[in-house]
């Protein structure tokens, strides 16, 4: 390929420190952690997520309407919620600019950090998770792994084109350390522990 490429690689090879140390094995650091949902919840809430208890059988459309009474555009990437904007009709991601509430189902979540995992498969359009004013996530409590070591061993990680570990709403403390939720992307992230349809 390019001359620069060859020069960089040659310089890196010539200057490589010796002796080389072997690649270490990374354990999964398992501790006794029975209550994954509780640990997930405290991590999630620590970074500003809103955890809402879910009574099995409740009407999700009604719950969302009640929590976001002023929402005009609801875009759902899950079969459990109808919404009024069809993701399949979206040609350009910028069309999602007016979405008030988006609904997604993370493939899995991490108890240690309170993070949810979303890839292009779960988002449909990647920008959905960022342009919407509010994001609602339906998480099956059975989909929670203990820590990041387990998360990074999930086979979906290396095959996703895009994937995010999302932990709470967009946030900043860049001015005097004052915490602001909703810096750029979503203003709130709400999580409902809803099992997947059998």
């Amino acid at each position: 390929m390019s001359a620069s490429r060859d020069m960089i690689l040659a310089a890196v090879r010539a200057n490589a420190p010796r002796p080389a140390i072997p690649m270490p094995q990374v354990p999964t650091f398992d501790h006794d952690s029975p209550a994954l949902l509780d640990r997930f919840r405290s991590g999630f809430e620590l970074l500003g997520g809103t955890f809402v208890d879910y009574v099995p059988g409740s009407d999700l459309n009604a719950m969302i309407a009640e929590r976001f009474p002023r929402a005009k555009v609801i875009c759902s990437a899950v079969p459990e919620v109808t919404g009024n904007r069809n993701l399949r009709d979206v040609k350009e991601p910028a069309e999602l600019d007016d979405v008030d509430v988006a609904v997604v189902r993370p493939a899995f979540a991490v108890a240690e950090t309170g993070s949810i995992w979303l890839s292009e498969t779960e988002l449909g359009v990647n920008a959905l998770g960022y342009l919407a004013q509010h994001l609602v996530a339906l998480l099956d409590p059975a989909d929670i792994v203990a820590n990041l070591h387990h998360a990074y061993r999930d086979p979906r990680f290396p095959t996703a084109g895009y994937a995010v570990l999302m932990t709470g709403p967009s946030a900043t403390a860049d001015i005097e350390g004052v915490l602001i939720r909703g810096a750029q992307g979503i203003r709130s992230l709400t999580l409902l522990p809803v099992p997947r349809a059998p």
Partner: protein
Amino acid sequence: MRRLDHAEAASRFIADEKHEAFHDARLWDLRKKRDREAHGIPEWEELRRLASEIKEHTLAHLADYLEEFERNAVKNGVTVHWARDAAEHNQIVFDILSAKAAKTLVKSKSMLTEECDMRPFLERRGIEVIETDLGERIQQLDDEPPSHIVVPAVHKLRGDVATVFARTLGTEAGNEDVNYLAESQRRTTRPYFLRAEAGMTGANFAIAETGGFVVCTNEGNADLSASLPKLHIASIGIEKLIPRVEHLGVFIRLLSRSALGSPITQYTSHFRTPRAGAELHIVLVDNGRSARLGMADFWYSLKCIRCGACMNTCPVYRRSGGLSYGATYSGPIGVIIDPTFDIRKYSNLPFASTLNGSCTSVCPVKIDIHDQIYKWRRVIAERNQLPFVKKATMKAAGRLFGNPKLYRAALSATGTAIEDLPRFAIYNWFNPWGRQREVPQPPRKTFRQWYIENRTKR
């Protein structure tokens, strides 16, 4: 290149007590939060050891891992470019933008593009560049470089931000409400996300095994920059490589805990392939890194994951402000990286340290920062880059410490001198220690006198 005078620049920062006091307290608070998180993880030290070993292993096999990364990235449909230095990097980025007729570039924070001084290069060629991280945007609008690698505007108070925003974004003059200021940035940046033809990110980690890379932000601005435009360019320093996806478990657990004292950044984003209908370009940048790799004492600085923990804990950094270092990288990590770019210009920086070692003890990848600072002092002295006063003083001190009789005579004379000398003889230009502080009252006798009286008589 003129030698940078860190002490002089710091004295300007210190002159404003309100800013200095806030800066010191804010960064110390980050350090305390980091401690809380670190102490909450029983395997913390084990994670640091692993992180250090993974990085050292990777750097020893870096050429192989770079080739593996490139191979996989190309397989993923990514275009990979290589840049030897800043000029080549900037030209590559401009050429990619030109080929797509892109006029507007939204970007998330990247220390590498700061290092390459990319923004002015593109702006001179008609590209509008929008920094989208709030702190970085404040700095861009104020025409200042970032003063901290994680919190770029940490040296500013809300009044400063209000002034900058009123001047540049048209916010209400004098409205210093932080929510209002942040919301103003959100409102004015969003249209750029929606219409920009190109987006740019850096990378915190690049994974050889997948050809993918990871970007960590709290605002989600990297994701906005990458998920809307049809063109995504990622500039990545060659030292960001790690071998495998599972290694991310170690680094992501350490990064934000060390940086801000939070368990993870709000958004830890993994990019591997271009979106359908979009292009993804990666620019792998050397810019001095391969040369640094060959420096027996100093290649360890390439392990750095840019968390800023060493800056937050450093008593000199906290009280002098990042801009006083006059370099892209400030604080302890800057002190050991900057001289590799220009040893004369940055020859003063390794002296901006008390060698207390706090930086080394918080570093998540176990870089021996304070040892390296000491070693840089030696290199600078050997290359004759010491300023005259320091050199003359050191020479005199060397003679003194090398001769016990002379030393003892001088010591008791010093005690008398501090008590008897007029103030101008102590607090003058030749004695920087007397500039911001009172010289302590000398003890009545030296340790040696005390020892002879109390220990040798028995």
